[in-house]
């Protein structure tokens, strides 16, 4: 997917001016966080499970090479194939070759952010292979030619009315010429249209929530069951997953599943949890004849051993964006790439370059709500701050900010000078502002006064001046 992260500020302007988006976001902000809170409260050991989930991922990352090779051995022993893709281009080439090897014309896909990351759909279309998104949200945005705006709810930026219009536009040619207004009717129509596409597909492509090293299984959770049709009906099943999805054991998967669904949607468990373990065996009634796992690195191994490593614990639940007031204000598209919200603000600079995504780790108040709900306790504000430090070191911080900071720093490190200057500033701001109590505009403070009044200090001087005048230091 082509990044527009460099245009973050423009994207923000468009997002704030979009009434449909703002309507959708107002529902998301209340719904997800409330359901997560209730789910966490219902499970007394939830906080302890978060610790265990963190520890499992830390252990895996410390031994990532071992578990990946173990996973490969198991998959191979089952009759499947593991393909290593260092870059997005490698993954696209591997998948295209696999599709062509069976003469595929259509590929049934279940939702995969990694597929978005490598821009798989565009690539397949160029080769004349039609990718069919089967997750309802992904299907809607595929029809609209839009990128996802949320990692677990890709069409969350749309209202029901927008979906109704989109379906009418695209399904009319299939004989559905009634504009539907009920949620269930829209789902039923999509299900009907998609059913034949599952049956026709030559290849099923899914992502993976976890790759289990001890069994060679890929594990998927969905609420729609679309992944199960994607991976059982076609002749070939391709799993596309990034390397940090591997975990040691099924026991570990049980722990992670318990925090994943609760953190994501507030469910105790997703409706479908599916393990795919190799191709169809002799005697099996169904299942794919070929089973391939494409393991994507795409810059992740470069994070190992660095101060950013903790982001690789992420299990893609979306809780950080569901609780982020910045995401809640601007939605996912403003971030300009596949991964929005706090986890995206940390991961995107790594994957597309910090020059491209320099705004993302800066557009945070460090309110800390993301870290407080992260099921694997990733210190997201700390990692965003590390990006700011790298930007500062590499002189990517805007010049005006650097100059302002340098001036402030010069003064702040000289308490005597600081006192004199703040005394003057206090006097001026108080003198001209106290009749109104506040300023409606103020030189050099346009960013503030464009939307807010600026409170004027009362007369009498700074605290330090008053303290000196009224109290003797001991």
């Amino acid at each position, binding site marked *: 997917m082509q990044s527009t992260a460099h245009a973050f*500020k423009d994207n*923000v302007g468009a997002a*704030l001016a979009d009434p449909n988006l703002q309507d959708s976001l107002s529902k998301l902000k209340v719904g997800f966080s409330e359901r997560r809170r209730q789910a966490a409260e219902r499970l007394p050991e939830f906080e302890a499970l978060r610790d265990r989930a963190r520890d499992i991922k830390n252990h895996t990352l410390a031994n990532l090479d071992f578990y990946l090779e173990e996973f490969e051995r198991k998959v191979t022993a089952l009759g499947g194939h593991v393909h290593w893709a260092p870059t997005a281009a490698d993954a696209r080439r591997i998948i295209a070759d696999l599709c062509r090897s069976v003469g595929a014309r259509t590929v049934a896909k279940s939702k995969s952010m990694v597929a978005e990351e490598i821009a798989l759909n565009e690539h397949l279309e160029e080769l004349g292979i039609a990718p069919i998104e089967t997750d309802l949200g992904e299907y809607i945005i595929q029809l609209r030619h839009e990128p996802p705006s949320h990692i677990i709810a890709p069409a969350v930026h749309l209202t029901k009315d927008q979906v109704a219009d989109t379906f009418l536009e695209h399904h009319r040619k299939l004989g559905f010429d009634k504009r539907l207004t009920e949620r269930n009717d829209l789902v039923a129509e999509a299900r009907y249209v998609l059913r034949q596409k599952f049956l026709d597909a030559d290849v099923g492509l899914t992502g993976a929530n976890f790759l289990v090293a001890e069994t060679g299984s890929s594990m998927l959770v969905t609420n729609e069951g679309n992944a199960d049709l994607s991976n059982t009906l076609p002749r070939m099943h391709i799993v596309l997953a990034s390397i940090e999805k591997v975990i040691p054991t099924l026991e570990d998967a049980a722990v992670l599943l318990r925090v994943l669904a609760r953190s994501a949607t507030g469910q105790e468990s997703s409706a479908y949890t599916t393990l795919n373990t190799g191709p169809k065996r002799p005697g099996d009634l169904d299942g794919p004849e070929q089973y391939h796992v494409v393991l994507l690195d795409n810059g992740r191994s470069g994070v190992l051993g660095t101060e950013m490593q903790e982001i690789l614990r992420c299990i893609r639940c979306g809780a950080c964006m569901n609780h982020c*007031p*910045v995401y809640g*204000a*601007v939605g996912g598209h403003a971030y300009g790439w596949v991964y929005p919200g706090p986890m995206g603000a940390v991961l995107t600079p790594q994957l597309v370059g910090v020059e491209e995504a320099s705004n993302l780790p*800066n*557009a945070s*108040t*460090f*309110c*800390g*709500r993301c*870290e*407080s709900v992260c099921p694997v306790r990733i210190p997201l504000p700390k990692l965003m*701050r590390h*990006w*700011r*430090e790298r*930007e*500062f070191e590499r002189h990517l*911080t805007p010049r005006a*900010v650097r100059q302002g*900071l340098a001036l*402030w*720093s010069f003064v*702040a*490190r000289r*308490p005597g000078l*600081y006192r004199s200057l*703040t005394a003057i*500033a*206090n006097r001026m*701001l108080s003198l001209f502002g*106290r*009749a109104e*109590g*506040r300023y409606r505009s103020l030189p050099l403070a346009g*960013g*503030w006064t*464009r*939307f*807010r*009044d*600026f*409170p004027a*200090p*009362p*007369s*009498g001087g*700074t*605290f*330090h001046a*008053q303290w*000196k005048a*009224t*109290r003797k*230091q*001991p």
Partner: protein
Amino acid sequence: MHPIFAAAMVVGVSTSIENDRPPPRRVALFVTCLVDLFRPAVGFAAVKLLEEAGCTVEVPPLQVCCGQPAYNTGDRATTRAIAMQVMDAFEGYDAVVAPSGSCGGMLSHHYPALFDDDPALKARAEDLAARSHELISFLVDVLNVDRVAARYDGTVTYHDSCSGLRELGVKEQPRRLLGSVKGLALREMKTPEVCCGFGGTFCVKYPEISNAMVGEKSADIAATGADTLLAGDLGCLMNMAGKLQREGSAVRVRHVAEVLAGMGDLPAIGEPEAGAR
């Protein structure tokens, strides 16, 4: 004597903290740069509350800022230099208390990690961190203050500032003390824990996003019907006051310490002084 200070003295007569008084402690007040420059009354309110709880309060003259502007911009070298200056200024006090969860959290949660590569400085930073507190939680959790004798006739709503809430666990302490203020009724917002959009330099670097956030906050405040908004951090308060006033709201905005210290009759943040017109 300045009127703010005089007001504090007058109310002080009727304010007593009925508790087993701990032995006097030598407490350094970390005024914070915003309180120093824009709202000195908060500093005097803090002094009053601490003294009434039995502390001896000093204001070390070499203090300036905790370094967050540099820290949050990614300028680690400047942050370290300022942190060392703060460590010097507050050497030797039993406790360092700030009327701010943000600045308090900077000292108690963020300084030590700045010196991971220097064991001697890290030890000093950890020593300061262990002595550093946000004002209201220091009163309640350390000094065991559980009531004040102030009076405030009004309905207030309380915003939980992010650093105080999530780094320092400041949540029930201000509500407990506010519960003892005569005449005061508390009405909670729907989402008092959601950020107001201040975020230090964030509010001027991303003014549109900040405005959307504070706009939502002001709607939440208005929906409570409260006549007064309180919080424990002046940055958030200035942001919310500025937005409320731009919208023409009549809600008055004050630092929680002012109300607890019986200084709730001062002009609110952004209000003109009596006779100044």
